[in-house]
């Protein structure tokens, strides 16, 4: 009768090796392997170098796509930008993703607070010297109730979506409407961005206010990710989710190829169009990862190597020599 351990861990049919040994120099082997890999990596580096596409800047974004930039800024004021509606860990304006009743994003709460209107627009504008018209607009904004502010900003962001780009990063053909101080604020934000001054102000936003050092790019990156420039570049480089982008790299370089299975799920339904795709894919990958680690105790999966005997190829010399030594001695050569 097989023991419980045997049932769980599988039958131990590995007798201790009592056969012959061949000379082996472990340290020499490791040394030669290391030298070989270093040489190979150096050759690949010399032949192919590596990708290093310069980062996008907010100045580039606001100059190249001024309408998109201004729309994103107005959406931040209106509370309708992707970051504003994200939910945890940035704010409480969304529930976050969930898989049935499982909602770790919500459970863990707001750990990196981001308030887009204040951190991405009002704060940066308030910290730099402004002409009287912008100071007045900031003053009106601060005195106005939140609902009215959002109404103005939402109306302006919708009007901007239909606006056109003029020469030199200007915006034209914005439909007249009741937008309060929002056009002045967004105009000032666009000017600040186009001058290259917004990145620094965004780095000082949120919890980093009034600090000299900062290594946290959360706010500027969230702001940029809400806009269109990063996505435009990513699409050109085949980095979008539906382009298997998770495992791709800029240029024609191999990327994180080992993420192919993660990337695969995003290409098929129901994940492709699910609002909860990330948690569903991460959960599946979590379970598969656990299964991968536990292969030795998963019945069936651990037996496949016996059913598909590739081991006979791996150890063919061993089996051949065993067969030869077990064969009866040849009789009479005649």
């Amino acid at each position, binding site marked *: 009768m097989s023991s419980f351990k045997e049932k769980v861990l599988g039958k131990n*049919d590995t*007798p201790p090796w009592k056969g012959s040994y061949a*000379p082996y*120099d472990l340290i020499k*082997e490791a040394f030669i392997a290391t030298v070989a890999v270093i040489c190979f990596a150096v050759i690949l580096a010399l032949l192919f170098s590596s990708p290093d596409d310069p980062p996008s800047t907010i100045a580039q974004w606001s100059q190249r796509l001024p309408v998109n930039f201004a729309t994103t800024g107005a959406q931040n004021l209106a509370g309708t930008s992707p970051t504003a509606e994200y939910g945890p860990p940035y704010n409480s304006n969304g529930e976050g993703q969930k898989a049935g009743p499982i909602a770790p994003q919500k459970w863990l709460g707001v750990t990196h607070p981001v308030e887009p209107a204040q951190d991405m627009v009002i704060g940066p504008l308030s910290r730099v010297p402004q002409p009287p018209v912008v100071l007045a607009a900031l003053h009106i904004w601060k005195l106005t109730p939140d609902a009215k502010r959002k109404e103005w900003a939402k109306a302006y962001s919708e009007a901007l979506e239909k606006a056109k780009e003029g020469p030199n990063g200007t915006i034209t053909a914005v439909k007249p409407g009741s937008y309060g101080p929002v056009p002045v604020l967004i105009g000032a934000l666009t000017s600040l961005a186009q001058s290259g001054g917004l990145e620094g102000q965004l780095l000082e936003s949120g919890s980093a206010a009034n600090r000299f050092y900062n290594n946290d790019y959360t706010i500027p990156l969230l702001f940029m990710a809400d806009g269109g420039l990063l996505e435009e570049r990513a699409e050109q480089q085949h980095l979008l989710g539906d382009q298997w982008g998770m495992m791709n790299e800029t240029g024609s370089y191999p990327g994180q190829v*080992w993420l192919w299975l993660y990337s695969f799920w995003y290409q098929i339904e129901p994940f492709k169009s699910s609002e909860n795709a*990330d948690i569903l894919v991460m959960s599946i990958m979590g379970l598969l990862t656990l299964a991968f680690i536990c292969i030795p105790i998963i019945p069936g999966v651990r037996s496949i190597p016996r059913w598909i005997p590739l081991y006979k190829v791996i150890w063919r010399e061993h089996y051949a020599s065993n067969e030869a030594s077990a064969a009866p001695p040849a009789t009479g050569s005649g």
Partner: protein
Amino acid sequence: MSAEPAGKPITEAELDHSWTVKLRRKAVEELPPEKMLPDGQPTYVANWIYVFGVLSIAALVTLILTGMILALKGPSWWHLTSIGHFFNSVHLWAVEIFFFVMVIHLWGKYWMAAWRGGRIRVWVTGAIIFVVAIPTALTGYVSQQNFDAQWISTQAKDGLNAVGVGAFFNTMNFGQMYSWHILLLPVAVSALVAGHILLVRRNGVVPPIPLKEQVQEVPAKAQPAATTTATGAAS
């Protein structure tokens, strides 16, 4: 000149209570020097597939060496100088080599059913090394300070946030990602690799799966892991 004072000899009971002695005895018992650094290998270890384990370690060494040079010079160096970019390129290609040879090593071990004979921990540590290597690479990608880093960090955050990891692991925080990449995760991978190697040395390389006609039913309890007590065995 005075003679050395005669000290009280250390008793066996005192040695038995010493944590250090206990650890030493256990270490020598589990992994005697001839097993740790063998001079022979069972003759069945005769296939190119066995090379990929040591190649994985070699790639990790290459990664650590190039990573140390990049860390010494600092984050801007690899963008601003051609020599810095060269070392960054070697580091990148070493990553690709590391994953490539590690995956082949894992497949090879799978088809050998290399967890047999009390070697489950060898498989488990190997599989965990692969799993931990993934965030090690990811934190490197988001620490590059180029467009790739911008895009990957803003995309990866959604998956990590969705499962709650984003609450304490922020891909857009360069300082945090850089720390994970150059210290915490490499230490974890290196420690796991060290444990994996020790387990391999302790248990020996898994012997071939017996062919059907050679299978002998032996009680599991009576079958310890194969050893590579190789001293003199090669002769």
